[in-house]
Every structure is written in structure tokens, then in C-alpha cells.
């Protein structure tokens, strides 16, 4: 693992054994996030984006569990002298979800912003209390210092009059303010990786613009890496350096943002890009929806999971063989039979 990779997910499988069968929410996922960069994770709902995030933090709800794979996290260990830095690689998937090591990382080195700011903040506690709680879990400082730290952070995320809002309950805040409080809580321990699960989906465009701008600014200052989970291709194009397109629990295409948007390889990526109306686009052209919908998780199609909806389905092979990931010349990787002979197979 090279030094600039912060997190590498290898062959991750998170399954949910139910009475009706096993739901393979994440099934053989490979990902890498570079230090300080932004990775976009896109796909339709039900393709396993959120479960991937939960797996990294080891907060998958029961009965789900990680059955296979590695989540390698390269952490910087500050030595006593403070100057010399050592890096250490830990496999998060192997840690006990309730163990002290995982609890020390969760919320501190890897933090998460959840989708719904109303449901993920406690309605019973003030936002100040919740932020202070997060600080005291990971830092050995006094209550008063923690309070000051929280107020400073609230100011950083652009909450007006942070000292007054410190004692406010989430219901007293507007959607945008709640999301700011959420971001403050996530960033207060200066994580090296921030996972943002649909951070702006519930917000208006104008508020969305404020939050995206804020996230970009904070990322620049803190130098943290961001994993941005969204289904909004516009947000991906604006924010990300690299993009991973997910379909039914696996990555079907991966590359830097410019190549994925301007030279999409996988038929699913192409279809996704064709199905969105573009501002300023011509009206005469009808949108090309992807036929059908994401298949039932219990009933995965054979072969390539996308083949029943695929416009480019060419051969019998699509229905029979599960394609493997290949690397193209420019570094983009794709999982489709169309490219199996063009690209170089990945080990």
C-alpha cells in the first residue's frame, strides 16, 4: 500500500442473512481513497453505497455483517517528539466493532455526516451537548475547554452567534443550520477521513451550495479526505476528484472525475449520465431513462448484474459470466465484458 493512500477497501462483502435469503448489500467491493482527495460514490438507491460507509465505520445494523474482505486504514502515528511521523496500517474489518480500537477511530479519525440531519441528531439533547460529548470521548480535556472548542467549531462552519445556538435543540434550527451543526460535530476531532452520506439531498439548492462550499473550504484547510456518497451527478462533478460508480454492491467503473464524465466506459455510467436533464441542454432530445429498476436484492441476476437493463448487452456471455475488473490505458477501471479484451486485467 503506497503512502498516499489513506483507506483501501479490498474485496469487501457485507451480507444480511434474512429468513428469505441472504441480501448481498456489498459484494466484492474494491476502493481506494487518497489522502486529502475527494472520492464520489454514486449509484441508484439500493446499490449499497450507505452500507459501504457503515462497513468502514463498523456500524452495520443487525443482522448485517462483514463476511469477507479487508478495510485497510493507514493512520499517522505521532511519536512523542512530535516531528517524526510513522504510519501504521490497520484492517478495520478485523477489529471488534465494539472494541476500544474501533471506538477510538470512529468519530475521531474517521467521521461521518449522515443523510438526514433531523433524524441523526438526538432530539433530546442540545447541539452543544452533542458536540461536547463527541470531543470528550476522544480528547482528554476539561468540559469548559470542550465547550470552547465546540463553539469555535460552530463558528467555523458558519453558524451565526454560535454561543447562543450552542444551547439550542435541533428542532429549533433550520435544515441548513442542522447540517452545519452535524458537520461541526464530525469535524471537531479533525478526522483524516470524512464520510458524507448524501449531505445535501434534503436541502434546497441555495442551501446546498452553501454547504458544498463550506465542505470544500474546510477540506482545503484541514487536508482531510472525503468520501462523498450521493446520487446527484451534479454534486459529484462539482466536488470530487475521483468517482466510483456502484451497481448492486460492486464498483462497475472507477476513474478520475473528468474521464468518468467525459469518457464513460460502462453502459451503466453512460445510462446514468444520459438520464439526467442538464441545465441549458436542448429540450427536443428526450431523456433516455434506464429501463426497469434496480433488481430485488434477494434475486440477483446471473452473470453481469446489469445485463437485464443494459442497452449494450451484446452476447450470451453477459447473462452467464460475471465480468472482472479491467484497467484501461489511462488508469480508468471498468467491469464489463465489452472491455475484457481491451483492458489489462487487475490482480
Amino acid at each position, binding site marked *: 500500500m503506497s503512502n498516499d493512500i489513506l483507506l483501501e477497501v479490498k474485496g469487501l462483502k457485507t451480507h444480511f442473512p434474512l429468513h428469505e435469503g441472504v441480501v448481498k448489500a456489498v459484494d466484492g467491493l474494491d476502493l481506494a481513497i487518497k489522502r486529502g482527495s475527494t472520492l464520489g460514490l454514486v449509484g*441508484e*438507491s439500493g446499490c449499497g453505497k450507505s452500507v459501504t460507509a457503515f462497513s468502514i465505520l463498523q456500524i452495520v445494523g443487525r443482522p448485517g455483517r462483514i463476511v469477507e474482505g479487508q478495510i485497510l486504514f493507514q493512520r499517522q502515528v505521532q511519536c512523542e517528539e512530535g516531528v517524526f511521523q510513522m504510519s501504521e496500517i490497520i484492517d478495520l474489518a478485523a477489529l471488534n466493532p465494539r472494541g476500544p480500537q474501533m471506538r477510538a477511530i470512529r468519530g475521531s479519525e474517521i467521521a461521518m455526516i449522515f443523510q438526514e440531519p433531523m433524524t441523526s441528531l438526538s432530539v433530546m439533547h442540545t447541539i452543544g451537548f452533542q458536540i461536547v460529548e463527541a470531543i470528550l470521548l476522544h480528547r482528554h480535556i476539561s468540559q469548559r475547554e470542550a465547550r470552547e472548542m465546540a463553539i469555535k467549531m460552530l463558528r467555523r462552519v458558519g453558524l451565526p452567534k454560535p454561543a447562543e445556538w450552542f444551547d439550542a435543540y435541533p428542532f429549533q434550527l*433550520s*435544515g*441548513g*443550520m442542522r447540517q452545519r451543526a452535524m458537520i461541526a460535530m464530525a469535524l471537531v476531532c479533525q478526522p483524516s477521513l470524512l464520510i458524507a452520506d448524501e449531505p445535501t439531498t434534503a436541502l*434546497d*439548492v*441555495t*442551501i*446546498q*451550495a*452553501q454547504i*458544498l*462550499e463550506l465542505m470544500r473550504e474546510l477540506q482545503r484547510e484541514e487536508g482531510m479526505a472525503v468520501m462523498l456518497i450521493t*446520487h*446527484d*451527478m*451534479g*454534486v*459529484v*462533478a*462539482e*466536488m*470530487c476528484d475521483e468517482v466510483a460508480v456502484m451497481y448492486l454492491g460492486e464498483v462497475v467503473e472507477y476513474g478520475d*472525475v*473528468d474521464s468518468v*464524465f*467525459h*469518457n*464513460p466506459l460502462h453502459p451503466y*455510467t*453512460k*445510462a*446514468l*449520465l*444520459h*438520464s*439526467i*436533464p*442538464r*441545465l*441549458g*441542454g*436542448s*429540450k427536443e*432530445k*428526450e*431523456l*433516455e*431513462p*434506464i429501463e426497469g*429498476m*434496480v433488481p430485488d436484492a434477494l434475486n440477483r441476476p446471473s452473470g453481469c448484474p446489469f445485463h437485464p437493463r443494459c442497452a449494450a448487452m451484446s452476447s450470451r456471455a453477459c447473462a452467464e459470466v460475471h465480468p472482472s475488473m479491467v484497467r484501461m490505458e489511462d488508469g480508468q477501471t471498468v467491469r464489463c465484458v465489452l472491455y475484457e479484451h481491451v483492458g489489462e486485467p487487475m490482480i
Partner: protein
Amino acid sequence: MSATIGLQNEQDILVINNLRMHFAVQHGFLRGVHHYVKAVDDVSLVMRRGETLGLVGESGCGKTTLGRCIVRIYQPTAGEIFYRAANGDRVNLAQLDRKELRPYRHELRMTFQDPYSSLCPRMTVRDIVGEPLRINRICQGRELEDRVATVLQRVGLRQEHMRRYPHAFSGGQRQRVGIARALVLEPRLVVADEAVSALDVSVRAQILNLMQSLQRDFDLTYLFISHDLSVVEYIADHVAVMYVGKLVEVAETSELYHHPKHPYTEALLSAVPKPDPRMRSKRIVLQGDIPDPGNPPPGCYFHPRCRYARERCHEDTPELRDVGNGHIVACHFAEELSLSGVTALARTG
């Protein structure tokens, strides 16, 4: 707006004049009226037959309330809603009582925002879609079933779906059921409230295409309420922008998107993330939140967030006025400002 008498033009199906919908906020032991929330305040609009009027704005700006006034879920506080009925009658919907409204109920229909909460979980699709037919005593029994089957087929569902309950459907299918329920009475005007907001991108395109083909086939007029500007650009012929209960700009779609005349429209357009990494641009980020409609700022409601605001904006409330080509805008400085709209994007991929 030009139409003060209403419906002089043959093509106009609905003309709204100075519509107000104020909700009283009660307070205290005696339930005295504390203040009014002006959800819709002095809105005038014209809808032409067979066209789609897009209504955009941030949440809480009164889009849904306006839609609900048109189908008369609400009794408006003041104003007129002139409607040209199928038989040629011209009526003012705002004045009619429940009984008088009945003949027009089936001509004006609404589809609701959330496909999850707007379908009763204890009714089968047949009952949900058939209920309007039963209530309006149009048909029952075998005939009702046939009509439900036909309309389900038209919206892309199968006949055997009739016996199922809403929980068995995905979001897109539920939205289709909602559309079927609105269409079963063969309406002329449909208020579509955030019809695709709760759906995935790929399914969104399916529903948008369906709505367009239904419009062609049944000569429907849509009021398409949405906060998603790229969807509205795709489907609407004219667009009205609302801010805190008032209209701030109305124009033909491409005119509004390419040459916005109101600073709010400009900011909205600039805030939409563009699905092209090469188009990353400096966005206009509006500061602060949308004001409380119960306590709006004086003067132009937008002035606290407007980057072009001057002295006059703090006191004078601008009126809607025509600045040429049917482009209507409520800004004192509409002619002076040169605002930027969207630049055409090439299709990629």
C-alpha cells in the same frame, strides 16, 4: 399581469388574479389571532391550454399552497381563479362553494409530493385509483375495474397490479399509481407537486417521459411544482419563480434560464450543481436562510440576501411588471442589471 378581467384569450385555461392565501397563527388561551403567515401573497398567473407551467422556489415559499388553492383544497383568502371549463363556461373557482365546485373537481386534479405517504396502505391499487370514479358516481363494478385497468396500463403498470397494496411497489411505481389516480377522471389540468423529487435519477427520467407523453395524448395542462431547476427546464414551457409567497419572475423557459432578470433567479440557477466537472465555476452563494413568511423583511423580500440591493430595495416593494417579450419580473433594477443565466452545455458521454 395583463389579464385583469380573465380569460379573454382563447388559449388561457386558468387565470389567477391577486390570489392570497393567508393562514392565521393563533396564540394563547383565547386562541386570538397572533399574526398571519402570508403563504401566497398577491399572485397573478396565466396558464395556457396544453402547456406546462413550472413553478420553482425554495421550500417554504408557497409553491404547494398555490397548487392547493388551484384545486381548491384550500379556500383562498382573497383573489380570483378564473377557469375555462370543458363545456366553455368561465367560472371563478375561488368563489364557488363545495356544491358548485363538484362539476369541476374532476377537471382539476393533483398528484402529491410523497409517493409513500399519499397512498393509503390499507387500500388496494384498484380501490385507490377507482375511488375518484366511485365518489363522483361515474361508474362501478365491472366498468370501474375496466377503466382502472386501462389507466394503469397507460401509466405503465400491469392489470394484475390492481389487487396489490402500495407497499408492494417501488417509489417509481407508486408515483405511477398517483398519476393514474389523477388521470382516471380524465382531467384537463393537473397540478403535479414535486412529481419526481423522491425518485432515483434513472426512474425520474421514466416518469418525466411518461408525463410528457400523457400530456400529448390527453391534451393536459400541467402546473409542475418543483425545486429542481434542471427538471423544470426540461419539462416546462413557461416558468414562474416564487420567493416568500410572491412571484418574482415569470417568463418563457429558455428566456428565463438564459436571460434571468431577477437576482434571485440568477442565484438559483448558479447554485445548481452542473453535471460536468469542466464547468466548475464560482457560484453565487446566497447567504442566510429564506425569511419567515410570517414576518417577512420590509421592502423587497429578497433584499437581505441580494448582492445588488440598494437603498430603494429596503423600503419599496417592487411590483411585477412586463419588461418586454412577456418577461415579467418584480425588481426595481431589472433593466439595469446584467445577470448571467445558464450557458449551454454540450451533451457528453
